[in-house]
């Protein structure tokens, strides 16, 4: 395409700007479901669930994937801003460590379930969700 309709994408974590690029399409793991952002997307503000952000430089290219643990995203006609709690390139995930994290999180949840502390249980559930999503992203 001569002038491909690009969007300004920024993927930012509290510690650093991880990615600033102008792809043609981004797929964002919104809390209510994944959504793709192309140019002229209606303005949207969405929370994120643990999952992968797929950055398609062109529509038919293999996506570059980033795992995010959660956060928020704002998209408009020309830009897409992703504020991730934590983010890492999928290629950098250590699959073995991800497996271990899932096992640990499962064990922690089992411990928390027998305990009386409801907040601890919620936290353990969330941690397991993140760990599972990370393993899925790596696998």
């Amino acid at each position, binding site marked *: 395409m001569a002038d491909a309709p690009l969007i300004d994408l920024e993927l930012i974590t509290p*510690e650093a700007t991880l990615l600033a690029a102008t792809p043609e399409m981004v797929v964002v793991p*919104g809390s209510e479901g994944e959504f793709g952002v192309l140019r002229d997307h209606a303005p*949207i*503000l969405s929370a994120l669930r643990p999952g992968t952000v797929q950055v398609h430089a062109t529509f038919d290219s293999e996506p570059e994937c980033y795992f995010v643990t959660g956060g928020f995203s704002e998209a408009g006609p020309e830009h897409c801003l992703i504020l991730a709690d934590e983010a890492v390139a999928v290629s950098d995930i250590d699959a073995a460590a991800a497996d271990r994290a899932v096992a640990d999180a499962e064990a922690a949840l089992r411990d928390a379930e027998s305990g009386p502390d409801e907040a601890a249980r919620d936290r353990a559930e969330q941690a397991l969700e993140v760990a599972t999503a990370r393993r899925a992203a790596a696998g």
Partner: protein
Amino acid sequence: MSSLKELRTRISSVRSTRKITQAMKMVAASKLRRAQERAERARPYAAGMEAMVARLAGTVAPEDAPALLAGTGRNQACLLLVITADRGLCGAFNSSVVRAARRKIAALAEDSIEAKIFCVGRKGYDLLRRTHGQRIVGHRLLPPGRDLPFAEAEAVAEEILGLFADDGFDTCTMHYNRFRSAMSQVVTETQIIPRAAPESDEPAAEPDAGALHEFEPGEDELLADLLPRNLAVQIHGAFLESAAGEQGARMTAMENATRNAGDMIGRLELSYNRQRQAAITKELIEIISGSEAL
């Protein structure tokens, strides 16, 4: 007048002090660079978060805004989040924050508002504990090492939110040193609960030409997620500013100390040489008068 030997020991001790302060200055300078970079890297996130909150805050009707946004409607207790360093030897860095906090407490007391304190950093805690010990509701040391992970700010935010949820206070202000340049840090007071619109330079162009956003999930849920997050982001920002400021202050303080040590060495050497000269002259006079007597 001290003896020659005493002067010699004095000089060599001041020399080694100067070496130490010089080394500390250099360490602070390199840490400062790193701290500054980190503070800069964190800024885009904070700015993005602030923009999102501002956008959301504009859409929520004031009467159903959550307490973090609109306040509790009371003003009986105020929590001061005092951010200082864990270590000293950095000039007035810690004491100026503490002084600002004390002034604030005195001002609150005049309006009969109860002040509570949450300290981050050992120095502030040590200084405030003596005079305002009964007001301190919590304190936390900074993690050792160079990094100030975001999780640390989150933990502080969580504790503060816990207190807020228990009606521990109605407003919360943050006192810290903002980094302006290596030479100057500005003691800053920022209100973080309820959220205060940042005093930006550009006029509030935010209403944003009717850009109607879709919200997923709803506005209320998003706000309930975003506001605590934003609090942690603001606290983290203050941590990073304070860390950069600390290194800047230490660098300046150590530079002054090095210069003072140099001046002192000069003075001591002058008096050492004078005394040495006097001793030689005295000996010569003794020899000459001895030989003349013969």
